[in-house]
């Protein structure tokens, strides 16, 4: 036996997660031993999502070897193109080799072999590495990172293969098929020299001809002919906080089950969990148990893409799949947002840096707002993550009204501060309730039209909007009653008002189109002021501000839609006209989706909407006259500016 090899950290597995962890640790000055059996597998294209790219940046790994894509096309029924997804592609071998090389360059010691079962004695990990062309090597380290992959706890499988025969252009494609009664996610990503990689993923064991199913599903692209070997891999979607906490080492990536259960995508979480693991070890360099604990806590808090209760997990998964497919053609905000949340990973909270603060935003304001908003997110997420993990992700990214700068909690906070009292985190629960109610309202206030004629079974699109809306509003009511019973009645009144306003719009869409949004924004502003102990004139100011903001929001949605841009509610002009949630009727009564296609009318509508938005923005600012507290004023002003930005630029 060769003498024992020792390091600060032993990383078992040099896939993306392992290499990234090793690299991150080496950069922080740890000695790292990275052990892997060796082969990187055959070449095929891998989709690299925005959070994955951001992680590579954080790791200091240049990404010139990736190719940016323009869009992701979803084909679940009617084709839908998601732009602004920040996706890229690369050969998976290049990814692995680049990361391993970066790790070695940073000083990581690399060993070819397999790590045997670890034993912990005296606060150190001891294991034997079995090597193909050398003696077994005992190794010892203070920390152990386990990045060995999904094989040990496979919950599903995937296949992939390079092909020729179709030109995808600069976009990836995602669709669905069924293998028996098991949903299968099928994808196609462009490769070099006119090749593309076709793949499929499913839970449970796959038949060898899953690739045939994939190619058949994508047949409309062209005659697909394999040019590379078939790749067969396992998936582990079984993340559970318990498993992570109980493990011998820090589980990262596929090993931890950090995989999207719909698409099988795991790269973004592999890289991010590696970064979290490195952080945790760096925070507790001498205490491996503390490091493991810290890592498990952070990961559990941040990773919200799994179905918690094992008992209901498969049924809930199935429900989400049904919603995805049935609501595929819907531009309804609830589905548009839900779709993105289900299919595209978000950056884990606190890891991927938010955009830089806009000009003039005071650091003090950020410090004031940060903890309150974080507390608010935490409450909201904890409340709904068990039942609706993907809606919880929307809340986590502050995406309730399309952008974290527009989240209702900001408005609530600004109003709370107007009276001069410091932000009270006890009210974060109430703010969270309002955010959940806003999301629930979006689901319920214009549920999708029933699809197709009478057929067997439940209409999943309509049903899920009603069921999710009910769930969110019920939880919101409960939270309000528990945190601020003095506003229980006004909360109930608000819900009655929202439903009545919306019903009136159904009958007369051209009448006061922005009324629903006015109510949606007015309430958090009013209640924030009330709970902040503001005198009546400030409560009134906050109400008026919220009211004008709501109308401005309506016009801004129209501006974005008319301009062909992504709207805050992820919807389209056609959908807005059809559901009576557009204000174009105000400027030109009788506008239809067809007439709005005419460039001249469109231009006129765009101008009118932008002007209306700007007017409401001014009115909102005017309403702030009685607000003397500078921090509150700034927060209000920034909110209004962010809201009206599409019209003001």
């Amino acid at each position: 036996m060769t003498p024992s090899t020792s390091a600060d950290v032993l990383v078992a597995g040099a896939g993306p997660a392992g290499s990234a962890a090793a690299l991150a640790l080496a950069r922080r000055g740890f000695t790292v031993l990275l052990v892997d059996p060796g082969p990187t597998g055959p070449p095929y294209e891998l989709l690299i999502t925005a959070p994955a790219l951001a992680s590579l940046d954080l790791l200091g790994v240049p990404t010139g070897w990736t190719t940016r894509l323009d869009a992701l096309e979803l084909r679940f029924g009617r084709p839908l193109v998601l732009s602004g997804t920040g996706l890229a592609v690369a050969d998976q071998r290049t990814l692995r080799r680049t990361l391993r090389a970066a790790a070695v360059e940073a000083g990581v010691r690399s060993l070819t072999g397999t790590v045997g079962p670890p034993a912990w004695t005296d606060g150190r990990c001891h294991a034997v590495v079995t090597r193909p062309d050398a003696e077994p090597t005992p190794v010892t380290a203070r920390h152990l990172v386990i990045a060995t992959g999904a094989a040990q706890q496979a919950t599903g499988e995937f296949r992939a293969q390079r092909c020729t025969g179709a030109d995808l252009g600069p976009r990836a494609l995602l669709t669905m098929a069924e293998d028996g009664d098991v949903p299968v996610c099928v994808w196609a990503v462009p490769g070099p020299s006119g090749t593309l990689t076709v793949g499929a993923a499913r839970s449970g064991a796959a038949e060898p001809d899953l690739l045939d199913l994939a190619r058949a599903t994508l047949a409309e692209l062209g005659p697909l002919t394999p040019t590379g070997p078939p790749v067969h891999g396992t998936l582990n979607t079984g993340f559970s906080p318990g498993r992570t906490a109980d493990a011998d080492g820090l589980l990262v990536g596929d090993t931890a089950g950090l995989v999207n259960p719909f698409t099988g995508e795991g790269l973004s979480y592999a890289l991010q969990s590696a970064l979290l693991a490195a952080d945790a070890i760096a925070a507790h360099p001498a205490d491996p148990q503390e490091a493991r604990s810290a890592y498990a806590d952070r990961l559990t808090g941040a990773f919200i893409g799994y179905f918690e209760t094992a008992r209901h997990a498969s049924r809930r998964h199935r429900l989400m799949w049904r919603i995805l497919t049935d609501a595929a053609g819907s531009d309804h905000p609830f589905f548009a947002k839900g779709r993105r949340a289900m299919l595209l990973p978000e950056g884990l909270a606190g890891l991927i840096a938010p955009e830089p603060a806009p000009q003039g935003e005071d650091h003090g304001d950020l410090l004031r707002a940060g903890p309150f908003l974080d507390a608010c997110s935490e409450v909201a997420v904890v409340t709904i993550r068990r039942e609706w993990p993907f809606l919880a992700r929307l809340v986590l990214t502050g995406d309730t009204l399309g952008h974290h700068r527009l989240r209702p909690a900001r408005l609530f906070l600004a109003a709370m501060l107007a009276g001069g009292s410091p932000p009270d985190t006890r009210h974060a629960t109430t703010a969270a309730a309002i955010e959940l109610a806003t999301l629930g309202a979006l689901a319920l206030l214009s549920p999708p039209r029933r699809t197709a004629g009478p057929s067997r079974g439940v209409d999943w699109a309509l049903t899920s909007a009603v069921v999710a809306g009910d769930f969110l509003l019920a939880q919101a009511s409960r939270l309000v009653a528990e945190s601020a019973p003095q506003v229980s009645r006004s909360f109930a009144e608000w819900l009655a008002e929202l439903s009545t306003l919306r019903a009136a719009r159904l009958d007369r869409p051209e009448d006061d189109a922005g009324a629903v949004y006015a109510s949606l924004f007015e309430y958090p502003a009013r209640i924030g002021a009330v709970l902040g102990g503001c005198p009546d004139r400030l409560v009134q100011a906050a109400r008026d501000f919220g009211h004008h903001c709501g109308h401005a929001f309506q016009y801004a949605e129209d501006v974005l839609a008319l301009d062909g841009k992504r709207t805050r509610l992820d919807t389209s002009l056609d959908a807005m006209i059809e559901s009576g949630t557009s204000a174009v009727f105000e400027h030109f009564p009788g506008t239809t989706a067809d007439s709005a296609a005419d460039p001249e009318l469109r231009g006129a509508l765009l101008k009118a909407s932008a002007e209306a938005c700007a007017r409401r923005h001014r009115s909102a600012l005017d309403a702030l006259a009685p607000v003397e507290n500078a921090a509150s004023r700034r927060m209000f002003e920034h909110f209004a500016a962010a809201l009206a930005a599409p019209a003001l630029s």
Partner: protein
Amino acid sequence: MTTTEGTQLTARMLELVDGLDEPLRTPVRSLAARPGKHLRATLVRTCAGPGGDPRRVLDLGALVELLHLASLLHDDVVDHADLRRGRPTARAVVGDERATLAGLACFALAGMLAADLGGGLDVLTGRTVAALAYGEMLDVERAFDTALPIADYLELAERKTGDLFRLSCLLGAVEAGLGASDVTALASYGAGLGVAFQILDDCLDFGSAASGKPLGTDHLLGLFGAPTLFALAADPAGELAAVLLAPGFAIDDMPTVRRLVVALGGLDQATDLAHATYDRAVGHLGPLDPDLSAALAALWQVPS
């Protein structure tokens, strides 16, 4: 509930509903004006006993009935139902969107009433509505699952039906000023009664048509009740499952379903479970005032 009490309750509910603006007042009023058995309000009334402020007892009854109404309005949207209590559903008359909004408005009404009644009622109500919404979700996601374990079905029944019955008994008991252990006993009774009631309701699909809903609509949606689930579990050949999962399954397949469910012992097992659940619920009433227990036992005579 006596006829007078029933009339008073309906009147009070209509009074509350009239607080809603049009266009939602009409569809909510329509359903409120055609009361069902008022079982939940009856539980409130019975548990409140002879004491208690009659006005408040009436309002507590209205509260639980409004919650029930809100859930019916949404259930009918989800189930694509055309008939309820022998008349067209809200969604059949005003469409899915307006019916959904009507349900939301009704829920809001209940919230306002709970807030006005005070005494932490909003918290109790909030927890119950959260349970109702969760039950709605459990119900929907298990569609077409012919292997649904009875334990999961019972969880669903507890959330969807049991918890509102529990709240009804709880509100009455608190109003009567009963001690903590009696309140808990009544609440547990209510929870069990609700589940028993749900199971018996499922058995109705195979009995006489007294429910006012067309038979078999649940089966069409893949929502199988206790008798069917027991029968599926007892059917190794899978004949029943094949019938139920056939894409062309229609209401006129129900006689076949009925025959199979009965033959496989599903109806018997479900009936037994309903009675066992009821007996267990009644078991909680032991230490209570015998007059109260008798009054509650008499409720079971109400035709399901």
